[in-house]
Every structure is written in C-alpha cells, then in structure tokens.
C-alpha cells in the first residue's frame, strides 16, 4: 500500500516538473506568432522610406508648440505667386528683384537654390534632397549648426517667453531661428543702448525728468542742470 502511494506521489511530482519545463520552454515561443501578425499592421502605419521615418523621429524631438511663424517680408509669401510662372535659373548672379537680400552667410559656399527649393519656392530644401516648410526651417539651419540646434531644443539657445512653468500649447512662445537671425545675414546687428544710470556725483544736479520714447516704451530720464 505504502509503495502504491509512493509511486503515485512520485508520478505526480514527475508530471508537474515536466509540465513546468514544457511551459517554460513554450513561453518565449508563444508570443512570436502574435508579433508576426502585428508586423504587417505596423508597416502600414510607418512612413514608406527610411529617410522619411528618420525625419518623423527627428520631428518628434522638436517641442512643436513653442515654434512661431517665421517673419516673412510683407507681401512676399507665398513665393509661388510670382515664381510659379518663372523658369528656375540656377546660375549665380546679381538678383534684380530681391535687391534687399545680400547674402552674408557663407556666400562663397552656397547660393539661393541650395536652401530654397527650385521646383516649389514655398518650401525649403535640405542637403539630402528632402523638403521642409518655412515653419520647420530649423531643420535646415540644424544641418550645419548642429550644436546650436541641440541647445535650442533644450531651451539653452534662443529665447522663451510666456509662462515659465507651463508646457501647454500657446502658453510658451519659443522663437524660430529666423525670428532673431536674418537667414541671409545671421549675425546680430549692433543696437542703441538705453540711457546710462545716474552717476552718484551728479545726483544733486538733477532738475527733473524728461520722457523719452524708445521702441514703444516710455522712459523717464533725468534732466541735468545747475
């Protein structure tokens, strides 16, 4: 009797061990067919080419809602209103229409159509042949100024205004490269400084204040006199 019970217990233990081993072996295998079923669905959603997928990944890193509209010259955009009927001339020459543009941005190495798309002037052209809109011009600038681009995304380069502790769209204004830098001549131009503070030895010479209007702001400046 004891032997029979022993045999049954032994058999049970062996069966459980075998079952457990089978489950362990089967586990990594089981999800595989499901994954295979999912992959065709995924390929339908992602962009077709590898470069487009890379672009999409890149765009996901940009804090989209910060960007604002680029400062177009008045009455000039969309460019296609004039350019649609014009044949693109790729030769380097003196421009007879866009006279206000003088290229001071590595002018020796490039020309208009290196950045502007020759087929559709309402968009820009990257070095790899991809196209971006004017709202995404940071993609174009970031090709050469990679370190600045990286810092701009983090908020170290550039200017943020609005609400400091809110990331909701519209609460923060994060400027595009071209809102501060003229893309054809990106270096900052010198500006007039605001009036200097009163020197301590001149305090007794102040008669009163006068109003000076600078950039729409009224400033009260001391008037000196005996």
């Amino acid at each position, binding site marked *: 009797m004891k032997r029979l019970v022993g045999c049954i217990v032994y058999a049970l233990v062996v069966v459980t061990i075998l079952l457990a081993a089978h489950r362990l072996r089967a586990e990594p295998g089981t999800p595989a067919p499901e994954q295979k079923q999912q992959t065709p669905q995924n390929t339908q959603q992602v962009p077709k080419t590898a470069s487009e997928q890379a672009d999409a990944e890149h765009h996901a890193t940009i804090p989209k809602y910060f960007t604002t509209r680029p400062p177009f010259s008045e009455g000039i955009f969309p460019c296609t209103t004039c350019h649609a009927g014009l044949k693109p001339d790729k030769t380097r020459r003196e421009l007879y229409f866009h006279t206000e543009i003088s290229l001071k941005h590595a002018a020796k190495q490039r020309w208009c159509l290196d950045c502007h798309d020759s087929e559709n002037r309402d968009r820009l052209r990257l070095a790899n042949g991809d196209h971006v809109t004017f709202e995404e011009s940071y993609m174009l600038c970031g090709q050469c100024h990679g370190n600045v681009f990286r*810092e701009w995304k*983090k*908020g*170290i*380069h*550039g*200017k*943020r*205004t*609005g*609400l*400091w*502790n*809110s990331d*909701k769209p519209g*609460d923060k204004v994060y*400027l595009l490269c071209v809102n*501060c830098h003229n893309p054809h001549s990106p270096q*900052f131009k*010198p*500006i*007039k*400084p*605001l*009036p*200097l*503070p*009163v*020197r301590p030895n001149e*305090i007794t010479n*102040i008669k*009163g*204040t006068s109003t000076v209007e600078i950039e729409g*702001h*009224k*400033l*009260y400046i*001391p008037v000196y006199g005996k």
Partner: protein
Amino acid sequence: MEGIYMKRRDFLKTASVAVALGLEGIALPDRDAGASIWETFFQKHFREMTQAEKEEVVKKLETDYKKRFGKDIKVKANGPLPNVLYGYGLDLTRCVGCRRCVYACVTENNLSRNPQIQYISVLRFKSGEKWVDDLEDADKYYNPDVVPEPGHFYMPVQCQQCEKPACTKVCPTQATWKEPDGIVVVDYNWCIGCRYCMAACPYGARKFNWAQPTIPVEQINPQTHYLGNRFKHRGCVEKCTFCIQRVRENPGRYPACVEICPVGARKFGNLLDEKSEIRLLIETKRVFRLKEHLNTNPKFYYFFSL
C-alpha cells in the same frame, strides 16, 4: 525670536507714549496722524501674520493705493509654490550690454524714476582684462552710440538670490529673509533703513530709497506683490525678487528681464526640475557664480555658450 519681536513692540509703544508727551522722533508718525498710519506702524512681521491678517493688510494697502493714485492696484501676498527653487542663468557670450533689461525691470517693479533706482547694473569690461575679482573697476556708465563695442564684453549684475545670503544675517529687525522657494525678500514695513544689508551684500544688489520714490501714475504696474513690487517709501531698502509677482504663480510668467532680452541671454527655471532649461545649462555649459569664494552660494549662474 518671539521675545525679540515683543520687546520691539513694547519699545515702540513706550516710544509712542513719549511722542504723546511731546518728544517727537523723526521715525515716528505725526501726533495728528490717522489711525491707519498707526496701524501700519504697529503691523506684525509678515512671517508672523496669519492668513486673515495678511488679507487684512493687503486690503488696507489696496485702499491706500486707490486713494493715493486713483487707480485699482492689486496686491498679492501668496506663498511659495511647492517643490520650486528658482534659478537664473545669464549667457555672457550673448549679452550685448543694451540695458533693455534694466528698464524693463524698472517698469515691472514700480521702481522710483526720480531719484533713480535700478536693480540691474550692466558692467562693461575690456576683453582680456582681469575682471572677475575687481567688479569695482568695471564701467557701469558706458554710453556709446551702438553696442556691442568691439573689444568689450558686458556682465549684468543683480541680486544673486544666494542660498546663504549675507544680507539677511545682518538685518537687526529681520526685515529681510530667504523664502522657501529661494527668493530673498524684504518686508518694507519692517525695514528701518540702517543699510547693514547693503554693506553686507558682496554684489551691490540692494538699493536704498534716499528720498520719497516717484512713479508717473500712467506707468504704474497694477499687478503687485507684498514682498515684491508694491510701492516703497523713503528710507527702506529694496532689491530684485526675480519678479516674485510674476513667477510665484502656477502657471506664472517669466521675469521681465528674461522676456525683454533681445539676444535671449537670460534663462530662468526651477532648479528642482531636471528638465528645466536652467538645470540643462548647468549640467552642459561652463558656468560660474560671482564671488564664489565668499560661500554665499548664489542661484544666479553665469555661463558661456561659445
């Protein structure tokens, strides 16, 4: 601490009796002063006030301002935000010394136009000059036609909001202290104008109202804070508060100097937030703090982006 305040109050009460007897002190209100002036004079320390007392004081200030300027002026007395420690970054490679920040600060913080009070001093240095230790030799009164001038660079200096502020330690009436969100503030009602804090501050950041401050009524910023840009009076010290009336809100605006900077040299954020721009720049840039050897631990970081 309580004992010290009580002693001062007792002293003032005795002093007021002395005034009644005809021994008039300059610091005390006139004999025929209204009840509200006396109320202000015996006002509790801001940190000892209950919420109801704060609201009462704020309401009184608002009615006073309405009477004085004929304008609705909002006074807030809200406390610090949780898990926030304000930090500031200033990019010395970008600053062009245009002084836009100086005047944006004056307008935002209701600073006196005459006599002139400015929280920010923009210093000019010659390139290659020994500079960090000798701020006294810097030129604050440069006045060229255009900036930046070749061969020069600029460094704006304002309150560095030290973690170990020297100014608060020396105050005999504890009228100035560091708030939990890191901003060093002044209770103008408790300031007796001894200017010890101005002597203690290594950055020249504190300003004194030598005369009654004047502001044109149309230039008044009606959004004020009790510890920030409310109206100051003759004989009190004031200083930069990172625009406490703007930043101590959720959501709150950037300080006025950050918003005006035409070159984007000024950065502001929460030092406790790992993803804030101030944290990222401290981690990735060459930063320094002014007069670090004095162990004041400023939360104002100068950095170089190029």
